[in-house]
């Protein structure tokens, strides 16, 4: 499957991962699952990109499984059952090659292969459940968590005992009552020191973590009794796109402290919103089983795609564009910047530099990965929507470097080059 085939990925409540290819004129959808083998426990609760090149998609399920989907190969390459706390996986991230999961009961874990190196944080010291965990774009070890009656906290995995930043609630309201807190989504703004959260009690709050002030810098009320469920930063730093459980998609200006734009088209509660970091596209996914693509500058609804299942998560590629000129620019950029990926076979054997990269940043000594080979589950190779029963074929594993052989080759090459 060509790399640029699907530019939007959506995770559904039934556990189906869908890839959508959105072009200016048309939209093509394909399911990546065997539709006869769906289970309630496999509901996709969170999704994130597995690597910087956006080749891999990480899925977090209700049963605390984490699955990896490789977009280039078009198959699920890995599935791991984790056990930490209870509840579905509500947040996923990657730090130095290892996966970070956050579960509803509040436990955030960095899964290193060596048990001694695993870092575990209990983010739910107060409150009922954890709703969201997001990673800082600047430092992959910094995480933000928030939940029901559990205000925003920033954690550094290097120092897991106490949160780096713990938000303080706003002052009691005019009746002197404590204002309730239910953080439903968190986003880091561009400079990564300002964090915005949205609450089910219809407020969006902005915190400045470097200023020393624990109370929110700005608190914007969006609508009346609008349970805000998701939030995303947009291509403009001072604006944030918020979705509510009642089907309102609003562009909120944090500088001005009010809503600037309300996008139409949603009939059900918005589950997740994903805005492109540079271009003005916004993808939103809702309980009324539609994926909506808006343009924030022209305020238009570009595409409305019916996807049959209730949808939970959405991801958009960095090179997503409905403009053919942008696509060309992206290809040029990608060709210049792209490092040789570790799992394609022939290229790796030739280049010395890439061998070194594999050695340094591989989270696990090579012998262990060889053992792991046997434990890996067979891949589900799916193409398009009509799929026969998935039979476990022999897994096509990425070619791992055989250190002993390579060293010999290295010496030979060094000899040759010197000579």
């Amino acid at each position, binding site marked *: 499957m060509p790399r640029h085939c699907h530019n939007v990925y959506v995770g559904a409540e039934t556990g189906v991962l869908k890839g959508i290819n959105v072009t200016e004129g048309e939209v093509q959808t394909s399911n990546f699952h065997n539709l006869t083998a769906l289970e309630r426990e496999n509901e996709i609760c969170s999704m994130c990109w597995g690597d910087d090149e956006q080749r891999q998609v990480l899925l977090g399920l209700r049963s605390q499984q984490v699955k990896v989907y490789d977009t280039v190969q078009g198959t699920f390459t890995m599935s791991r059952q984790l056990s930490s706390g209870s509840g579905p996986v509500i947040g996923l991230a990657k730090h130095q090659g290892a996966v970070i999961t956050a579960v509803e009961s509040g436990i955030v874990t960095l899964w290193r292969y060596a048990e001694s190196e695993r870092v575990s944080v209990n983010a739910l010291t107060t409150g009922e459940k954890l709703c969201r965990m997001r990673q800082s774009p600047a430092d992959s070890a910094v995480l933000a968590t928030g939940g029901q009656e559990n205000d925003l906290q920033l954690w550094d995995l290097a120092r897991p005992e106490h949160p780096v930043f713990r938000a303080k609630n706003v002052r009691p309201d005019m009746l002197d009552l404590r204002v309730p807190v239910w953080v439903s989504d968190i986003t880091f703004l561009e400079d990564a020191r300002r964090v915005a959260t949205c609450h089910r009690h219809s407020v969006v709050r902005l915190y400045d973590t470097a200023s020393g002030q624990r109370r929110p810098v700005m608190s914007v009320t969006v609508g009346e009794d609008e*349970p805000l469920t998701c939030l995303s930063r947009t291509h403009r730093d001072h604006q944030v796109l918020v979705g509510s*459980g009642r*089907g309102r998609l609003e562009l909120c200006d944090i500088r001005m402290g009010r809503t600037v734009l309300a996008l139409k*088209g949603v009939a*059900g509660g918005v589950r997740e919103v994903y805005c492109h970091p540079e271009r003005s596209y916004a993808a939103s996914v809702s309980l009324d089983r539609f994926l909506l693509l808006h343009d924030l500058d022209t305020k238009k609804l570009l595409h409305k795609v019916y996807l*049959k299942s*209730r949808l939970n998560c959405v991801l958009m590629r960095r090179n997503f564009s409905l403009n053919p000129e942008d696509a060309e620019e992206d290809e040029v950029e990608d060709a210049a910047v792209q490092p040789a990926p570790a799992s394609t076979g022939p290229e790796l054997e030739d280049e010395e530099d890439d061998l070194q990269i594999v050695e340094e940043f591989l989270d696990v000594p090579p012998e262990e990965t060889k053992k792991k080979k046997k434990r890996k589950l067979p891949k589900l190779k799916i193409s398009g929507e009509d799929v026969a029963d998935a039979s476990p074929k022999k897994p096509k594993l990425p070619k791992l470097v055989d250190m002993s052989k390579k060293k010999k080759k290295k010496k030979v090459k060094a000899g040759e080059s010197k000579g």
Partner: protein
Amino acid sequence: MAPRSKPKPGEPSSSDAAAPLLPERCIDHKNKNIRKEKWRELRLQKNKEKREARKKRQKVREELGKDAPPVLQPHTIETLRIPDVTTVQPDDLETQQADRLDEFGGYFGREAAPRVLLTAGDFPSPKTRDFMKELALVIPNTEVRLRNFSSVKKTARVAAAKGYTDLIFINEDKSKKVMANGLLHVHLPDGPSALYRLSNVKLSAEMRRIKEFTHHRPEVVLNNFTTMLGHRVGRMLASLFHFDPEFKGRRVMTLHNQRDYIFFRHHRYEFKNEKKCALRELGPRFTLKLRSLQKGTFDSKTGEYEWIRKRHEMEDSRRKFHL
């Protein structure tokens, strides 16, 4: 200044190049009498053309007999309905799987028999009380309870713990002196909550048929729930009644959806012969209109909705329906 129409210059166009649905109101004359005359002439001409066309079609039908083209159907709002993307296809695998896994999977898998709790506001009026009593006779395995000043959320929690599968609240607006105008159906334990506007309630006591009720489990007929939302609502309403009807009782509940209004009727049927069936309507009858379908039990402030009726956004066309 032509009345009730966009003013168009020139004579009425004889060609059919203009959009066929727009009537030819191209008569534009400042003098009202002349305008009237012209319009009358045009109308007469059109009616004549219509009659001739119909005669032709009848002739053709007589000549061809069986091979004749089918009879033209008159346009109604139902036939002109804007096709919905979310219409459920019967052979769709994904929808079938979603049905197996959703909140009603247990009911349709015949695992849990429904047990319904019916209640109203704090001091229901006599009419509402009568309506509740009748509903309790109509929906099998229903209990009617007084509200006792408890909240919806609390009631849902306690009822779920006690093993009820469904909760129905009848809402009435006493200030308007109308009997009952709202119905909230909460499927337990964590199922969707549907809020309906209740109207046109007619009790069987008024129809004097209440003595003809039997206690056999009824059959349920769901008509015209085509879209995904309709499919879900239909399943939700069907899950109120027991999945094994007693055909001996010849009782049928019909939930007929037309133009987003759900009509509830209760009949007893008797087949006279293979083709004819006699129906006797027992009460009650009422009409429901879906206002919102919420995921999870009732939580209007912090909950998520699967569908909310947004009048100005969604109902911009008279030919667009959601169920």
